């Protein structure tokens, strides 16, 4: 479950856990150190006290001066050691037979009493004291006892006079230790509390680009506009991911566009084959009918009614033939090559339309000399585009036309001001009868498309910001047969 949490939570959470662990470990180490130091302090204090007391007790033990010895050890207990709170609980002086010489608490340790019988701790302490060897203080910590003991032999000129035992409560560290632990806890909490907002902020800072990226990816099937994706300016992996994602989106969109183009092309090609097939089916009987009519017409003996009717039939059939003929575009390769004059001719033809619509024509013809392209077909395309442009532009609007040669291609561009063609219409612009206006055959662009395709060229239309633009590119000297 933890794995499915958002990075917005995971990252700060991990940060928090790490902070907690670090703080705990450091605190524990410091507390441990403080505890060790505390013990050492207290032991050292006890040892120095034991040393001083032992020295002072030498004459008193030597002279069996119980009262003075009692005064010394009770004075040591009265000593306010408030800073450490490290006073012994009680002090016992033993004689050379390890019996009580004097105790700060005589009721608990009567003189000459046998201590181990009274308190088991002393058995261990006395056993340690009996160990021959060093005259140093011995630290005795009987397990499970309420006290720990410091035992010091009292020695004068290498003669053992007795022993000194200082007893300390086992939990004398507790108050100090508790304070240290509480301090550490408090500091840790304060530090964590202060760090928390930073942790959250930095975590979010890291997580946000990822979260955004994930959201965009979820939306990716809709192929959104890559410009919408905010690019981080960091060079780290997140930045790289975002840039790569944008590139991928861009390429996907291009692919989608190309696919759409292909689909449109396929549609148009299919339509072309269909219409060609229909046209041929119609043309064949049509030819026969026209011949028959012509034969009838040539023979006389026709009365007025018959002549009129025949004429009617003949006109009707011709109309059918024209219409069908328009569908059936055959790029009859005329030997005539295209020249600059051909193009100017088209301009002349188009100008008539211009005056009708009171539009302005901005003309640029860069073609000089002859070009290896069929002139009739190219003139047909150019004329069609110009006529469409004049039709589409409002009164007083402008039409641009440019013809030139680029990279061994003839480029024709015709643009007009006017209402834009919507994105929904654009893919179907070149289909027969796709026209948006009344009048006209609706076949103009269809025919132009067919011609361009047969010449292995390219035609497209864009419409934006009140300008509709048609572009045609025809490779020169590469016409299909």
């Amino acid at each position, binding site marked *: 479950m933890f794995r499915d949490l958002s990075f917005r939570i995971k990252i700060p959470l991990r940060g928090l856990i790490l902070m907690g662990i670090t703080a705990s470990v450091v605190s524990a180490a410091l507390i441990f150190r403080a505890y060790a130091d505390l013990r050492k302090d207290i032991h050292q204090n006890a040892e120095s006290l034991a040393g001083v007391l032992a020295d002072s007790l030498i004459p008193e033990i030597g002279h069996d001066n119980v009262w003075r010895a009692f005064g010394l050890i009770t004075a040591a207990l009265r000593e306010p050691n408030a800073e450490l709170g490290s006073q012994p609980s009680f002090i016992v002086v033993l004689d050379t037979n390890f019996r009580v010489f004097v105790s700060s608490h005589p009721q608990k340790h*009567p003189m000459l009493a046998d201590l181990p019988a009274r308190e088991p701790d002393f058995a261990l302490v006395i056993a340690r004291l009996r160990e021959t060897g060093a005259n140093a203080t011995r630290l005795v910590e009987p397990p499970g006892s309420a006290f720990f003991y410091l035992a010091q032999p009292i020695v004068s000129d290498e003669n053992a006079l007795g022993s000194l035992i200082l007893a300390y409560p086992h939990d004398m560290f507790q108050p100090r230790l508790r304070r240290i632990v509480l301090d550490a806890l408090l500091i840790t909490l304060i530090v964590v509390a202060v760090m928390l907002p930073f942790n959250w902020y930095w975590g979010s800072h890291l997580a946000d680009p990822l979260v955004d990226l994930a959201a965009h990816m979820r939306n990716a099937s809709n192929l959104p506009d890559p410009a919408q994706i905010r690019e981080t300016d960091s060079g780290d992996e997140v930045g790289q991911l975002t840039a790569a994602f944008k590139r991928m989106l861009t390429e996907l969109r291009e692919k989608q566009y190309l696919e759409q183009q292909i689909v449109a092309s396929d549609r148009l090609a299919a339509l072309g084959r269909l219409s060609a097939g229909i046209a041929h089916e119609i043309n064949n009987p049509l030819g026969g009918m026209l011949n028959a009519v012509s034969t009838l017409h040539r023979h006389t003996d026709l009365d007025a009614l018959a002549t009129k009717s025949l004429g009617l039939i003949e006109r009707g059939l011709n109309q059918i033939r024209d219409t069908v003929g328009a569908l059936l575009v055959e790029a009859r390769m005329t030997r005539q090559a295209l020249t600059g004059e051909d193009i100017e001719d088209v301009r002349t033809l188009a100008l008539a339309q211009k005056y009708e619509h009171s539009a302005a024509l901005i003309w640029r013809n860069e073609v000089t000399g002859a070009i290896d392209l069929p002139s009739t077909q190219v003139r047909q395309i150019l004329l069609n585009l110009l006529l469409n442009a004049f039709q589409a532009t409002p009164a007083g609007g402008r039409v641009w036309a440019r013809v030139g040669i680029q990279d061994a291609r003839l480029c024709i561009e015709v643009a007009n001001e006017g209402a834009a063609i919507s994105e929904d219409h654009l893919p179907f612009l070149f289909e027969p009868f796709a026209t948006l206006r009344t009048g006209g055959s609706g076949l103009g662009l269809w025919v132009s498309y067919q011609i361009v395709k047969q010449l292995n060229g390219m035609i497209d239309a864009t419409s934006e910001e009140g300008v509709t633009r048609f572009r045609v590119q025809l490779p020169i000297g590469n016409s299909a047969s």
Partner: protein
Amino acid sequence: MRDPLNPLPGEARQTLWRHTLALALLIFASAAVAADTLRIGLTPVFLDDQVNFLRAWRGYLERELKRPVEFVRRSTYAEIVDLLRQNKLDFAWLCGYPYVTHRDEFDLLAIPVYQGRPLYQSYLIVPANDDRTQSLAGLKGRVFAFSDPNSNSGYLVPQNSLAQMDAPAQDFFLKSFFTGSHRGVIEAVAAGLADGGSVDGYVYDAMARLKPAVIEQTRIVERSPFYGFPPFVTHRRVRPESVRDLRRVLLTMSENAEGRKLLQNLFLDGFARGTPRQYEDIEHIAKSLKRAGRVP
């Protein structure tokens, strides 16, 4: 220029005379002063920490005697006795026991009057939580605290009790020790360091008023017969005028307001002339115990 280290001969002799004369005068003066000062020794009969009172008492005595007075305190009777015998003290407030053992050298100066009589008792005390011990016999095999080996109430009396029980002097108790003072005995018994102790009743009563918290932790088991109160003594060689003067001042202390105030601090009524006969009991006991080898 004249060399100060080598003055001209005439001048040298003058300077020498001048210095010698000054030195002689100084020595003579201090000797005179020393000879004039009355030195009084105090023993652990006295509660040791009443410094202000001592200053006041000294002032009173100096005014009355018109001579400087010096109080000397020591922690054992023996030291005071020694100082007195060595002419380092003129007077001392001793106990009856060292007085009778040095009857040939010491004279009675005055005896304090306590609760109307120049007498006092020795108390046998035990810790308050011991409600079983009824007499010295009950302390057999236990720890006992004496005050001073030269004290009547703190040593001689219990030794006498042991003798009367026919008990051995040394091994009757498990362990015994000296605290050096009556106050020490009380404190030792109160703390439980000793199972029992013998103490000057006057000191015990005084402490009951000054430090009742300590007294409350003890219990009186037995009171001894009355004995002569610890006396002020002097050495035979001390000048009779000094003896007379100090005696007079002590005896008249109860007759003036300031003196009475000082006496109140001591819980005493006054001082009386006293006779050696008042210490016959102690002398008798001391002699018989010495003969029996129970005391040195």
